[in-house]
């Protein structure tokens, strides 16, 4: 029998029982739609993590005191005092791939203005910090080198702090706040950065010269972290090894001994988080795949019922010249049609659902062509696989018995 006759026969058979065909497909429809949606959400979140991390500065490097910390996240305010300003000077003079460099000292505390106060953090940095972290100034100005030298009591503040102590839409430039009872003058306002991928409010900060934070707030001489940027993104790994070599030498660490600092680059962070969301994608994919499998079993079930129910039809088809292979192909085509049509509907529904989720939740979703093609192939395979046994059962019927079947 040729293909067009085969498909005609199968379509006619499915048309005779439209509702059942639809219900049979439902499993596949839901399965495929959830595969597509889940993968789209998984991929979208991966992409958004990557975007956000790189918006923090994709060639950023980060040095913290102490040995390896977990997952590139600094483990609290280290009490290790291994990093100093001399380290920064050494990196600045010896490294060729490191561009900008900034010391960071940080303290949390209470910011007070009038009768309002709020908890926040103050970051002491130099002027390079803005570039490294891709922070921009909304109004006012950055502090100057002279102000760093003199440990001037000046600062820039983020939007959350403004909202907390001044109220909405106030430009507090020129006013004086107190941080842990130290009066500091506001000389600028930072542009809003929103939440980070990790849920931190990136606007809840005060930025001041590092000398100010060192001397007037923390009373320390060491620095807590070094932020740096590689001259270009592809120099980032090189910059990392340079910093490591320079610091080992500076800290007089012997061959084979462990570092007393850790250097992290942003692209490592990206990799870490991408792999987390890859795992997430795989998990979502497995769950969706299981529902697809259940859809396939649904097809098999209905095909068995259908073969039994249509025993006389099978007998008739055999008596008018249908060979075993024709009957097999007919039922196989029916199950493939069911799963492929179900698959196509599922793909459309999945794309719809993914973009719906994307719009409603303002989640990024990405429908990858691979997942569409894969779902389609999986559907065909399911059709063949789960259709095979019922179809073979039909093909092996004896025509006389089948015709006599009540």
């Amino acid at each position, binding site marked *: 029998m040729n293909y067009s006759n085969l498909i005609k*026969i199968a379509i006619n058979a499915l048309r005779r029982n439209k509702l059942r065909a639809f219900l049979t497909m439902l499993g596949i429809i839901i399965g495929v739609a959830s595969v597509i949606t889940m993968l789209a959400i998984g991929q979208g979140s991966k992409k958004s993590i990557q975007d956000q991390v790189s918006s923090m500065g994709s060639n950023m490097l980060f040095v913290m005191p102490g040995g390896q910390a977990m997952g590139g996240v600094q483990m609290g305010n280290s009490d290790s005092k291994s990093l100093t300003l001399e380290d920064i000077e050494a990196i600045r003079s010896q490294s060729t791939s490191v561009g900008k460099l900034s010391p960071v000292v940080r303290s949390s505390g209470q910011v007070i203005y009038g009768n309002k106060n709020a908890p926040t953090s103050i970051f002491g940095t130099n002027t390079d910090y803005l570039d490294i972290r891709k922070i921009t100034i909304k109004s006012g100005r950055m502090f100057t080198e002279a102000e760093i030298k003199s440990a001037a009591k000046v600062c820039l503040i983020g939007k959350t702090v403004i909202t907390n102590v001044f109220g909405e839409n106030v430009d507090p430039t020129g006013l004086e706040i107190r941080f842990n009872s130290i009066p500091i003058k506001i000389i600028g306002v930072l542009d809003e950065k929103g939440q980070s991928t990790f849920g931190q409010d990136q606007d809840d900060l005060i930025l001041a010269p590092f000398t100010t934070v060192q001397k007037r707030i923390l009373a320390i001489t060491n620095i807590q972290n070094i932020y740096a940027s590689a001259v270009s993104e592809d120099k980032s790994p090189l910059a990392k090894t340079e910093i490591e070599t320079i610091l080992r030498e500076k800290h007089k660490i012997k061959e084979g001994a462990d570092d007393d600092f850790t250097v992290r680059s942003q692209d490592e962070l990206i990799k870490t988080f991408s792999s987390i969301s890859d795992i997430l994608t795989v998990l979502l994919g497995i769950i969706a795949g299981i529902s697809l499998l259940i859809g396939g079993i649904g097809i098999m079930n209905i095909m068995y019922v259908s073969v039994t129910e249509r025993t006389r039809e099978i007998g008739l088809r055999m008596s008018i*010249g249908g*060979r075993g292979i024709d009957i097999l192909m007919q039922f196989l085509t029916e199950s493939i049609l069911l799963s492929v049509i179900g698959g196509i509907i599922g793909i459309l529904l999945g794309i719809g659902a993914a973009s719906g989720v994307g719009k409603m939740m303002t989640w990024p979703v990405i429908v990858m062509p691979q997942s569409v093609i894969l779902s389609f192939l999986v559907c065909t395979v399911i059709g063949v696989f789960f259709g095979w046994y019922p179809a073979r059962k039909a093909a092996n019927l004896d025509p006389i018995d089948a015709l006599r079947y009540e």
Partner: protein
Amino acid sequence: MKKIIEIKNLRKDFHVGEVTVHALRGVSFEIEEGEFVAIMGSSGSGKSTMLNIIGCLDKPTAGEYLLDEINMSNMTKNELALLRNRKLGFVFQSYNLLPRTTALENVELPLLYNNTIKAKERRQLAINALESVGLADRMHHMPNQLSGGQQQRVAIARSLVNDPVVILADEATGNLDTRTSYEIMALFQELNQKGKTIVFVTHEPDIARFTSSSIIFKDGHIIHQAKSIDKLEARQILMELPVENGYE
């Protein structure tokens, strides 16, 4: 006259567990082209078994069967299927039409299993077959929109559509009332007059009167075989039947 069917010393045994049922115990007969043969006999005498073998749906245990001068003995399943498709037409007691499928599509069905026939030709042949059974105006009706007699006519059209060398009918009037049975017999007679060979299984002597010869089975043997001397014309009998409910 050409011999369409030649049966020589044919046997058929069925094994049910320990028991062997001898459904056919050595039968021999011939059917010539253009004959209209009734196969008669009481229930369980082996009529259906015989017809199934003639119809290439079943294979004999022993003996020879030649259809249209081809020996069936060494045919494979697929070759038998091909023969059924090209040389045979079946009419069943219970019509066996596909539900929710128009009369026309039901009639087209055998041709779907014949690759040499294109869609357009298939449609035309099916229309012709339906016209020849007088159902040209019911082509697009579903089986459940047709009376039993009309459904059986569709089934007859389906058996005709591949222009078979012989039409095989098993109790084709078994589900129909007397008048409709006669109408169906009239149709068979008409087809027979046009040259179709027909083998018609029935246990009603009443119906067998319309055929040109009869073979009577008993316990797997042929006990009587004869040409009819007083063959009746179904059309004529129909006209003589009392008219009920303003029929025609």
